[in-house]
């Protein structure tokens, strides 16, 4: 650590997040290393270190001889100010070396509101933010993660996108970069060769052409650029890298526990859920495999909590055996097991009973819509009866705080649907009155609503978002419909959702807006401390664009989308069909009941879905 850095660390909040030196961090001898990569997470240390993708890719890349992957996070405002004042460029935590000198800078883009931080981090590293202004081969700036399934808003800043699961793909790209360095290729030569790797999207090889109405008319591409880039998946999860030696922070982070990923993808197909379509097909780990890895991960971490992670853990076929195996190992060691994203069914509830014997903190359900009609529209296959039944079990078991999550502004939503949220919450309260084992402690039911954000690669990718005023009107309607004092209503601020919607379905021109926002001080935009609606509106105006065009406009059936260049497996045709089913109020069975032919099975070479 340089004396300059030491000095400023004494002046900032929570300096331990800027030092590195944690248990299990990977230190390599620079003499044995010919590819150095900075894994950049465009948010704080506390958020980034809780990200499973980071721990996986960090471990996987560092298993490669000659490659050293280090971590780098976005500094909070006080630290950024001190760094800029002291002339300290953005550095990697392991070595403390400036990342601008690395061979590759890889960003994890999990959510759109982190985009401005990408630019800020590049700038702090002394690296030009635009790809076109970086003429050398290194540092190569690449990105992966969920929001890359529409890479266009970030296309001007990123040299190369890696689509889908990165365990194999990232290493392939880094190996090619090694070859490029050795052979002295130009950046252009390298990118041309990289385009041949399945899952690599080089935005510079594509030029969007816009029509008079502002929509995308065509995409011109360079020779050698594939028409569509198909995301990569790991076909057999048990053969891929699985993190059991995670870096253990010496300071508190958001998720201080072992996160055990049990499967990828989801069989359900909720029509609003991007992850549900983008991560298809479903693949699972073996139960024995997981038990062994869980023990190793716990022993190597010292954590006293383990959580099972997936989009819908109740759908993990080996759940009873896994839970039994884990509990019998964890209980004598006083390690607790937590099970988020369980469905409100009987089995899951009895499991909850068992695992959370000690702490009956809070229980969360996400019916997403208040009426059965609207739940059918979004294909959220949970009935009121099932939900109330789960609540009954919970209340009988002594739980007395319950959170219910909903979205407002879903396609076809009417005022009746909004009021139905209040009715449903009242039913839950009624259930408590009937069945609570201990009424003297009272009950707290929290209803939360957020504004629906239509996302690319979902059946609702054509839909308009409701505007801010309309959302707030529905919020008022719901607030007035809730009369009981035992029901608390929270609603999310809609402005961030509007910007999120504009970014997530944005085209390449939106990159200019992101750059303008960053130039005007925007960063860490997912934090209310930093987000400024005015800054975003001014930037849109400055670029001659409007967020409404992207967020509120209902797309034509045949519109060419900026993200059509990306193939996530699920076909556009299938999404269109699902959209029709939504309007007809018809539910689609999950993959285990019937394969509806979404197209994701094309990604599998040796097996079928959910095997």
């Amino acid at each position, binding site marked *: 650590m340089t004396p300059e850095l030491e000095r400023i660390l*004494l002046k900032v909040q929570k300096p*331990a997040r800027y030092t590195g030196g*944690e*248990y299990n961090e990977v230190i390599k001898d620079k003499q044995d290393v010919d590819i150095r990569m900075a894994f950049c997470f465009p948010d704080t240390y506390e958020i980034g270190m809780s990200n499973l993708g980071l721990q996986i890719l960090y471990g996987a890349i560092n298993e490669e001889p000659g490659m050293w992957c280090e971590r780098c996070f976005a500094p909070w405002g006080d630290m950024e100010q001190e760094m800029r004042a002291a002339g300290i460029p953005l550095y990697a935590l392991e070595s403390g070396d400036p990342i601008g000198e690395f061979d590759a800078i890889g960003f994890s883009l999990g959510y759109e509101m982190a985009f401005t931080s990408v630019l800020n981090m590049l700038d702090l590293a002394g690296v030009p933010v635009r790809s076109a202004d970086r003429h050398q081969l290194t540092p190569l700036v690449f990105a992966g993660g969920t929001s890359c399934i529409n890479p266009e808003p970030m296309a001007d800043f990123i040299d190369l996108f890696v689509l889908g699961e990165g365990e194999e793909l990232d290493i392939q790209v880094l190996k090619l970069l090694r070859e490029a360095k050795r052979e002295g290729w130009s950046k252009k030569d390298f990118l041309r060769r990289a385009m041949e790797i399945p899952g690599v999207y080089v935005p510079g090889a594509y030029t969007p052409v816009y029509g008079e109405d502002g929509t995308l008319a065509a995409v011109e591409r360079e020779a050698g650029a594939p028409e569509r880039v198909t995301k990569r998946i790991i076909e057999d999860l048990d053969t891929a890298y699985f993190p059991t030696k995670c870096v253990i922070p010496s300071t508190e982070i958001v998720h201080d526990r072992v996160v055990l990923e049990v499967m990828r993808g989801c069989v359900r197909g909720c029509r609003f859920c991007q992850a549900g379509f983008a991560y298809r097909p479903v693949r699972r780990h073996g139960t024995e495999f997981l038990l062994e890895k869980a023990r190793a991960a716990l*022993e*190597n971490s010292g954590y006293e909590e383990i959580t099972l992670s997936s989009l819908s853990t109740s759908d993990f076929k080996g759940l009873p055996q896994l839970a039994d195996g884990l509990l019998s190992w964890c209980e004598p060691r*006083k390690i607790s097991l937590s099970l988020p994203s369980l469905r409100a069914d009987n089995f899951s509830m009895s499991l909850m009973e068992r695992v959370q014997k000690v702490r009956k903190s809070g229980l969360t359900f996400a019916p997403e819509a208040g009426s059965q009609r609207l739940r059918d529209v979004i294909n959220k296959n949970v009935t009121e009866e099932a939900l109330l039944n789960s609540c009954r079990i919970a209340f009988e078991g002594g739980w007395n705080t319950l959170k219910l999550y909903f979205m407002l502004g879903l396609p076809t939503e009417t005022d009746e649907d909004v009021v139905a949220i209040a009715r449903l919450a009242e039913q839950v309260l009624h259930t408590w009155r009937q069945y609570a084992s201990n009424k003297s402690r009272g009950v707290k039911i929290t209803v939360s609503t957020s504004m629906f954000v239509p996302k690319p690669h979902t059946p609702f990718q054509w839909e308009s978002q409701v505007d801010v005023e309309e959302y707030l009107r529905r919020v008022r309607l719901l607030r007035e419909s809730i009369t009981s004092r035992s029901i608390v209503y929270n609603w999310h601020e809609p402005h961030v959702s509007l910007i999120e919607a504009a970014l997530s379905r944005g085209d390449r021109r939106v990159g200019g807006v992101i750059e303008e926002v960053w130039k005007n001080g925007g960063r860490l935009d997912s934090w209310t401390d930093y987000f400024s609606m005015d800054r975003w509106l001014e930037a849109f105006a400055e670029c001659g664009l409007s967020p409404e065009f992207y967020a509120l406009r209902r797309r034509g059936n045949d519109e060419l989308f900026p993200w059509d260049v990306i193939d996530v497996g699920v076909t556009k045709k299938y999404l269109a069909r699902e959209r029709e089913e939504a309007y007809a109020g018809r539910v689609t069975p999950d993959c285990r009941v019937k394969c509806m032919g979404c197209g994701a099975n094309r990604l599998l070479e040796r097996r079928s879905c959910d095997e």
Partner: protein
Amino acid sequence: MSRLLFRKTGRAKFISHLDLMRTMQRIFIRAGLKVRHTEGFNPHPYMNFALPLSVGTESECELMDFELTEAADPDAIPALLNRVSPEGIEALKVYDSARKFKEIKWLDIEARLFYDNKTREAERLREFFAAPAIVMEKKTKRSVSDTDIVPLISALQVTDLTDGLALISARLAAQDPGLSPAQLISALEQRAPELAPDHAAFRRIEVYDKDMVLFR
């Protein structure tokens, strides 16, 4: 009761006291050593630290009491811990002790004072701290009071290590009331601003009881 003597240096000096407790718990779990838990509604591992260390200060002499649920050879414990510790936290020794932390009376410390204009200030610093009384304003939550810090300094030497870097080695009162090395700098800022360094780094060296006998 078992007592651990450990160092906290380098990058680990930025780990806060609260985070250190968490980190220690995890080190013990990773080492396979089961620490006795407290009784009560919210049981947590019983680990008691002497004299919490400020963020940014290094130490050669941290002490922590704990009790294991299963007997273990004390001499073997430091190696077990060090295999699974983050950089900069180093177990030196484990032994039984019945002495109470409140018997700690004096602390040896080192303070490195950095002057960006590269001046050599040892002489003037020596003079400053040799005064018969150094009255400092001490702010508590409610009031501002004047305290003479001289009685809290048992010994103090100053040397110039290089141009612009002076080293203060001092024996300071540890508690009730104590004088932290950072307060030596505050004294300069208040009483002799021209001697206040641009940056200072601190390290604890040793702990003593009221008879100036090494405390263990």
